[in-house]
C-alpha cells in the first residue's frame, strides 16, 4: 500500500544522478492508541526513549514526513477521554493538554480571563492547523518561536506532567531548556496546563512579525500589566524568536514596576528589552533586525496593555 521507492536516473545540470526516489512518507513505526493516561505512560516507559507522543501531530507528522525523526513507537493520545477539558477554578484556568488551539481560541473562559492567550493563538499556523494542534503538543515541541510556549512563560503557567514515577508540576520557567528541548523525561506526558488568575483589570498586548501569515514568528512579544492607584504593580513581558527558548524581559519588567505607565516608561522598558536580547542571525532575519523588532514590538504591546488597563479602570 505504501508506494515503492524506485531508483531514478536523471541528468540535471550536466550531472548524472542516481537516487532512490524518496517520496515524503513517514518511516514505519508501531502505533499504539492509548485509551488512558496510564496506557500512554506505560507505553512510553516500555519503549525506553524510542517512543513519541502523537497529539495533534501538526509538528510531529511533518518531521516524520521529512524523516527528521524515526521513533520506533508512536503513542496516540487523541482517544484519551477528558484530556481536552478546560475548567475554571478558584486559582485560574486548568487546560487539558489535548485542548485544540481553535477550541481554546473560542473558549469563553479564555476570552474572558486570558484574552492574550486567545490573541496569540490567532497567530498559530492556519485554521486547519489550529483545528488539530494541541496546547500540550505545542509546549512539548518547544519551538523557540512558537506562540504557546511564549504565553506559558508570560502567564507563569504550571505544567502538570505524569510519568512512571508519578505526577509532578513544572513551572514554565523551568520547563523550556532549549530549542525543542524540555524538562520532560522520556516516559512523561503533559496532562494539564494551569494558568494562574490575573488580577482584575490587567491590560495585555500581543504582537509578532512574520514574513507570511501563519509562519513562526521572527519575533513575538506579549505583555500583561496590572495597575493600582495609577502605578504598575506587576508588568510581565515575554519574548520569543530571540533565543533558544521563550524568555521574560525581566530588566524591562523592573523598569516599569512602580511607575505610571506613560510614554517615557514604555520607551525605557522597550529600550531595556531591546538591549538585553542577544538574538542570532539566520536566513530569515539578522540579529540587528530581530533586536530592532524587540524594541518596536515591546513598545506596541505595552501601549496596547496601557490602553486596555485604562479602559478597564474607567
Amino acid at each position, binding site marked *: *500500500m*505504501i*508506494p515503492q521507492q524506485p531508483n531514478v536516473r536523471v541528468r540535471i545540470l550536466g550531472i548524472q544522478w542516481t537516487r532512490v526516489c524518496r*517520496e*515524503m*512518507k*513517514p*518511516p*514505519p*513505526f*508501531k*502505533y499504539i*492508541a492509548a485509551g488512558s493516561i496510564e496506557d500512554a505512560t506505560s507505553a512510553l516507559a516500555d519503549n525506553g526513549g524510542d517512543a513519541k507522543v*502523537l497529539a495533534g*501531530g*501538526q509538528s510531529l*507528522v*511533518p518531521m*516524520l*514526513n*521529512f524523516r527528521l525523526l524515526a521513533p520506533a513507537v*508512536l503513542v*496516540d493520545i*487523541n482517544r484519551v477521554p477528558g484530556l481536552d477539558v478546560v475548567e475554571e477554578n478558584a486559582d485560574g484556568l486548568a487546560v487539558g493538554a489535548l485542548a485544540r488551539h*481553535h477550541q481554546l481560541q473560542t473558549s469563553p473562559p479564555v476570552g474572558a480571563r486570558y484574552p492574550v492567550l486567545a490573541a496569540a493563538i*490567532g497567530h498559530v*499556523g*492556519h*485554521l*486547519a*492547523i489550529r*483545528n*488539530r494542534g494541541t496546547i500540550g503538543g505545542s509546549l512539548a515541541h518547544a519551538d523557540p518561536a512558537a506562540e504557546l510556549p511564549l504565553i506559558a512563560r508570560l502567564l507563569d503557567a504550571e505544567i502538570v506532567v505524569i510519568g512512571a514515577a508519578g505526577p509532578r508540576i513544572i513551572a514554565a520557567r523551568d520547563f523550556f531548556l532549549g530549542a525543542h528541548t524540555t524538562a520532560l523525561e522520556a516516559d512523561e506526558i503533559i496532562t494539564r496546563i494551569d494558568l494562574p488568575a490575573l488580577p482584575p483589570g490587567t491590560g495585555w498586548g500581543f504582537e509578532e512579525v512574520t514574513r*507570511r*501569515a*501563519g509562519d513562526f514568528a521572527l519575533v513575538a512579544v506579549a505583555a500583561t500589566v496590572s495597575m493600582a492607584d495609577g502605578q504598575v504593580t506587576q508588568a510581565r513581558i515575554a519574548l520569543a524568536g530571540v533565543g533558544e527558548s521563550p524568555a521574560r524581559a525581566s530588566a524591562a519588567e523592573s523598569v516599569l514596576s512602580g511607575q505610571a505607565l506613560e510614554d517615557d516608561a514604555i520607551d525605557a522598558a522597550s529600550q531595556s528589552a531591546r538591549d538585553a536580547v542577544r538574538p542570532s542571525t539566520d536566513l530569515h532575519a539578522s540579529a540587528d533586525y530581530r533586536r530592532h523588532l524587540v524594541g518596536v514590538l515591546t513598545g506596541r504591546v505595552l501601549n496596547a496593555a496601557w490602553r486596555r488597563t485604562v479602559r478597564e479602570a474607567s
Partner: protein
Amino acid sequence: MTEQHAIEMVVNGVTYARKVEARLLLVDFLRDTLGLTGTHIGCEHGVCGACTVIVNGASARSCLCFAVQADGAVIETVEGLGSVDDLDPVQQAFRVHHALQCGFCTPGMLMTTIDLLRKCPSATDDDIRNGLSGNLCRCTGYDNIVRAVRAMAGERRE
C-alpha cells in the same frame, strides 16, 4: 510484513472498511486506497493546504494525519460536494468569480471555505483572507478566491 490495522470510516456518506499500515497518511488512504483523487497532495508537510479535507466537522491537513487515526471518523472531501452538472454553491461561487485557473489548490480551497463559513457564516474580508491564509494558490493572486467566498458570505448576511 508490517502490522496492519483494521479501520472503518465514513467518507462522503459511504462507509469504508480497510486494513492499513500505521504510517499510511490519510491523504494517501483517500487517494490510493479509496481512489478518491480529488484531494491533492502538494507539499506533504502542512504548508500548502492542497490536501485539506474535513474530519469530524473541522478542516484538517490530510497529510498530517494517519489513516489509522481516522478510524471511526466522518470525512468530507471534494468528491462529496456537487457534480459537474450540479455544483455545490461554493463550487458555483468559485466558477462565477473565476476563483481558479489550474485547479490544483481548488479542492483544498473549497474544503477550507466550507469550514470557514460554517464557523463564521458572515465572514468579513479580513476573516476570509485570514481563514484562507493556509492555502496556497500560484495562479489567481487570491483576489478572485476572496471574491467568491465574499459572495457566499454576503448571501448569508442577507
